[in-house]
């Protein structure tokens, strides 16, 4: 198992290096000049040149990349063009909000998806199944930019139970987490249903039933456990996406997370923050994938045994 984890870690580091280089190159390819953003169009060319020199932007691209990678090793992502604050500090300030929203959304998604998916599978071709799948289809189809304001209207204006937006206590988490969790619950419930349906007709389930196990024990101890592998992968990917910031939901609910930070930075053309958030998002995906792989290997010994390492 240690060898497996080390191998995955090494490949993750390689991917991080590749992503860092790619992000750096992309930021130099997109239109716009950070010097213009910092000094304004009206600045004198000599001032622009001086700042370009001070920031090392006059150097050949490969040297700039080398400097960038050196700074990365010290966790230095530069400073915001507009606020002058360290990008790492800003990201660390914003991450708890994203983590909170992600955890809230995934909790809601799991609370809804597991019972819905399992019941739909166990009662295949019944009204429950049809209802569950109708929910799944609706949940996947409703865009967040529409569901968000709708939930605000219902939960904040009609009922007055929750604040319209902002991050101020547990109540303020409900509507954004619900917005984000609905689509995820829909996808998950479909996945759980088909995974349970696949294993429910297997021989080992029949054996379990023949041994006289009750329906609950058969489902939870045997069927669900074996159906969990693809669900785990999906959950990992979804959580990775959530930790990288839910751009639309965070913007609608003025949620101060990574997603809204990236949008603000793009709008303000704050290149170091854009670069930092893209790298952060990549790291989140890589990290979550690594954890998923390890969990996968723990859940299914065949995977770690098959691994070349």
């Amino acid at each position, binding site marked *: 198992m240690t060898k497996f984890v080390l191998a995955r870690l090494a490949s993750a580091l390689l991917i991080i290096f590749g992503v860092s280089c790619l992000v750096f190159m992309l930021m130099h390819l997109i239109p716009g000049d950070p010097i213009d953003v910092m000094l304004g169009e009206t600045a004198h060319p000599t001032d622009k040149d001086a700042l370009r020199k001070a920031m090392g932007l006059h150097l050949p691209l490969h040297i700039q990349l080398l400097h960038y990678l050196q700074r990365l090793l010290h966790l230095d992502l530069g400073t915001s063009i507009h606020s002058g604050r360290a990008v790492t500090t800003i990201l660390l300030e914003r991450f708890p909000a994203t983590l909170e929203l992600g955890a809230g959304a995934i909790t809601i998604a799991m609370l809804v998806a597991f019972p819905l998916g399992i019941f739909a599978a166990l009662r295949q071709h019944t009204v429950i199944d049809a209802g569950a799948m109708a929910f799944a289809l609706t949940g996947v189809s409703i865009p967040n930019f529409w569901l968000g304001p709708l939930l605000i209207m219902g939960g904040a204006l009609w009922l007055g139970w929750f604040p319209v937006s902002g991050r101020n206590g547990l109540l303020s988490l409900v509507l954004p987490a619900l917005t984000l969790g609905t689509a995820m619950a829909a996808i998950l419930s479909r996945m759980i249903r088909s995974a349970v349906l696949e294993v429910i007709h297997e021989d080992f389930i029949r054996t379990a039933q023949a041994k006289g196990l009750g329906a609950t024990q058969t489902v939870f101890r045997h069927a669900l456990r074996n159906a969990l592998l693809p669900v785990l992968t999906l959950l990992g990917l979804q959580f990775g996406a959530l930790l990288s910031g839910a751009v639309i939901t965070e913007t609608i*609910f003025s949620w101060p997370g990574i997603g809204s930070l990236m949008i603000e930075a793009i709008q303000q053309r704050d290149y170091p923050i854009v670069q930092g958030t893209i790298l952060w998002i990549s790291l989140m995906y890589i990290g979550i994938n690594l954890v998923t792989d390890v969990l996968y290997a723990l859940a299914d010994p065949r995977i770690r045994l098959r691994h070349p390492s």
Partner: protein
Amino acid sequence: MALHSAIVLTILTLTVGCSEPRSDTTLRFGLANTPANLDPRFATDATSARVNRLLYSRLIDFDEAARPVPSLATWEQISPVHYRFFLQPTRQPFHHGAELTASDVKATYDFVLDASNHSPHRSALTLISDIHVPTDNIVDFYLNKPDRLFPSYLVIGILPANLIRTNHPFHEHPIGNGAFTFIDRPDDTHWRLMRQVDRQYVELLRIPDPTVRVLKLLAGEIDMIQNDLPPELTAYLDTDDKISIQRRQGANFSYLGFNLQDPVVGQHRIREAIAHAIDRTSIIHHLLHDTAHPANAMFPPKHWVGDATLSGYDYNPTRARALLRQAGFDEAHPVRLTYKTSTDPIRLRVATIVQDQLAHVGIDVSIQSHDWGTFYGDIKAGRFQMYSLSWVGLKTPDIFRYVFHSSSIPPRGANRGRFIDTQSDRLIEQAQATQDLHRKSEIYRRLQAHLLHVLPYVPLWFEEHVFLARRNITGYVLSADGNYDGLLTVTRRPTSTQLTRQESHQP
């Protein structure tokens, strides 16, 4: 976006409940954008400039006609290159208790002028050759060339010299001597300020989505908002009896720009035809819900170089068709143009309407909408035939050199249409050389009349400023340039419940 707004408006009409506003005394002001930098030496965005006005004092301010007027100081022109500023005898100390003196003014401007500090405001102030402080209350500015508009440039908030020396992080912990002190920034969406005169707390909240901003206002979670709303939302709130609305004509100038080196729009007749083919009144009424006023020049008539007598191009499709025929175009050989714009939904809607109106006179327009970086890059590089943009926050007429002088073609300026016209150049140079302000304004008026004739831009409209608040909010005065100075006087009237509670506590 239109569909989104329509859905939201429909549901709003059906559902809006009457939530009670919060009972605490903090006033909450919803903003569309973050104040990016609370250090006035580096701030460049409009929101930061508006918030910084509350936290710091500046030497001068502007009156309704955008003429410089005393703020922290009065001034006297000792010679064409020497201005003396006298600090007001009664002035607020800095928020950390120290007195504001002339040395603080010098330290602030010296910092900005020091090239190694890379302040974005340096280029506007490079005409300052030296700053002297004869006494604690007097600052002398020496210029390297005469400029009668010089006082207009001294709008940077003054910082304490001792904190400048110690590299105090003003962007994180602003310390000025403005009417408001900075309390804290709990996260990137909240800034808390305190009005010094009555210790009234004001919270600035960043709510980027306009619909959510409106919903928060209706729910009473915020007390007021200003600008940055789609016109249909403003029109909707105008009918809501819980909300009061103030409007004021603004100076943000929208226009259609042309590439004068293009063989088609480089022809004066074609530009004139376009000016006659656009029905601005209809666009302002139907699309912008009367939140704009037609423009005939870059500066509105009430500006000190503005000209109320300028008459623009009336909507006249027949005249437009005739002009196109004179230029050799007809139905068999229509004019084909590309119109570049950003992805902003309102700008896209304007482009679509202009496309339709121009089609009626035989101009076939194809719209190209790009993200801001690509769009702006294309405009600066001259890769366009026609585009639309706005000039925001214009105060001094030296902008004419920057935008229309032949020496200002990018990257040396913002003459993006590559407009080369000897008469315009001569008028700009004359106006800048003239030291008499009355004469200067006359020349600028002639220049604007000339520009309206040769049409490097087709002027569209000036956007209105709009302030919306809950009914119990009083005392906010909407300013001509859309700043937030209304927060200096705004108060919340106690609700009837609060009044009853107060009365029941009377002995």
